[in-house]
């Protein structure tokens, strides 16, 4: 079975990360597999995991009381999913459902935060990547809100 290290090292989110930092991440990592239809997380649950998707595809859904779920984003290989928090655990605000057989490396957020606090160089590097990820997400959401195709 392939170890998690080469998967993380090849993943776009972690690409180029120093090996010693990768080792810190591996302390918080475990493998998970989701079959189609299975939820990676549900609305209101505590967000305790940060998912590194390395195979498969998931849909990010918002549940509407009368009309059921609406998917607002799909994510797949090479993407990450989740919140990093430093004070209180955040809660998920969406449901995330596997569309295909999806393999992830899930990172325990409390463990990650601890590693960041113990090694500030690692913490800065990890947060730098996370900030970039959030910036891209915000840009994409802005475009969706702008009704891209409505002109």
């Amino acid at each position, binding site marked *: 079975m392939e170890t998690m290290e080469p998967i993380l090292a090849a993943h776009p989110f972690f690409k180029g990360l120093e090996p010693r930092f990768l080792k810190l991440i591996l302390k918080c990592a475990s493998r998970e597999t989701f079959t189609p239809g299975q939820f990676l997380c549900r609305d209101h649950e505590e967000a305790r995991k940060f998912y590194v998707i390395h195979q498969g595809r998931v849909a990010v859904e918002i549940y509407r009381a009368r009309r059921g*779920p*609406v*998917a*607002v984003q799909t994510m797949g290989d090479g993407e990450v999913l989740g919140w990093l928090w430093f004070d209180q655990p955040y809660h998920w605000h969406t449901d995330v459902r596997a569309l295909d057989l999806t393999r992830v490396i899930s990172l325990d957020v409390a463990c990650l935060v601890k590693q960041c606090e113990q090694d500030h160089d690692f913490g800065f590097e990890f947060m730098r990547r996370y900030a970039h990820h959030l910036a891209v997400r915000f840009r*994409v959401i802005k475009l*969706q809100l702008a*009704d*891209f*195709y*409505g002109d």
Partner: protein
Amino acid sequence: MKAHQPDPMTPTPFVVQRIKRETADTYTLNLTRASGGTHFIFAPGQFNMLYAFGAGEVPISISGDPAAPEVLVHTVRDVGNVTRVICRLQREGVLGVRGPFGVPWPVEGAAGSDVLLIAGGLGLAPLRPALYQVLRRRGEFGSVELIYGARTPRDLLYPKELERWRGRFDLRVHVTVDQAESEWHSNIGVVTKIIERARFDPPNTVAMICGPGVMMRFTILELIKQGLKPGQIYVSMERNMKCGIGLCGHCQWGPFFVCKDGPVFRYDRVRNWFERREV
């Protein structure tokens, strides 16, 4: 003796043979000449002025197959008085047609390159003839990718054709929508995200983009980020064309008349005008 050229300002009557509802507000019309006879020869990306008698004239891109010139195909969105009349035509209804006008997509020039066709919303209609031509001469091109985005699955044009294209081994089709119900199994997100997944060799790629301005702007930024040069990117611009032959000035865009110098422009030639809001 010089051959007789038809007056570009005189509409030719065409008869509606078929009208098909594509989405809630968009229809595809198949037209043939009322007089019968000659085919309608055009190049992918060109447009016609469609005259709804008693209502007015609008510029509409040709969305049919250049290799099937016996039928003239237009996909029209009901967004104003004239297009409303056009969309309500029935079989045997008559339209005036002037054209074809404008600069086409550079399909010939793309031979030997990878081809990216990127459409947003109604923008698939002007790109469809280019895709027909590329597929007809498939061996002349490298990788061919169609990236198409719309608001919802219900807003996708030509869904059956998209399925057929998707089944081909020599074409990669990426369809994405902004949001969807759970029965939708394709991508959800903006087209710019899909570009990251497309297979192309940046120095040897020609990209053709058609869609709303904001979509084209962000698509261009992403393509440049992926390594394309502005001279490899072509955009189709939409302006209020009136005469169609560069006389009236209605469609002036900086130093260009979109009807005559466009609607397809190489991006490096228009990039300084692309971002200017006042033109």
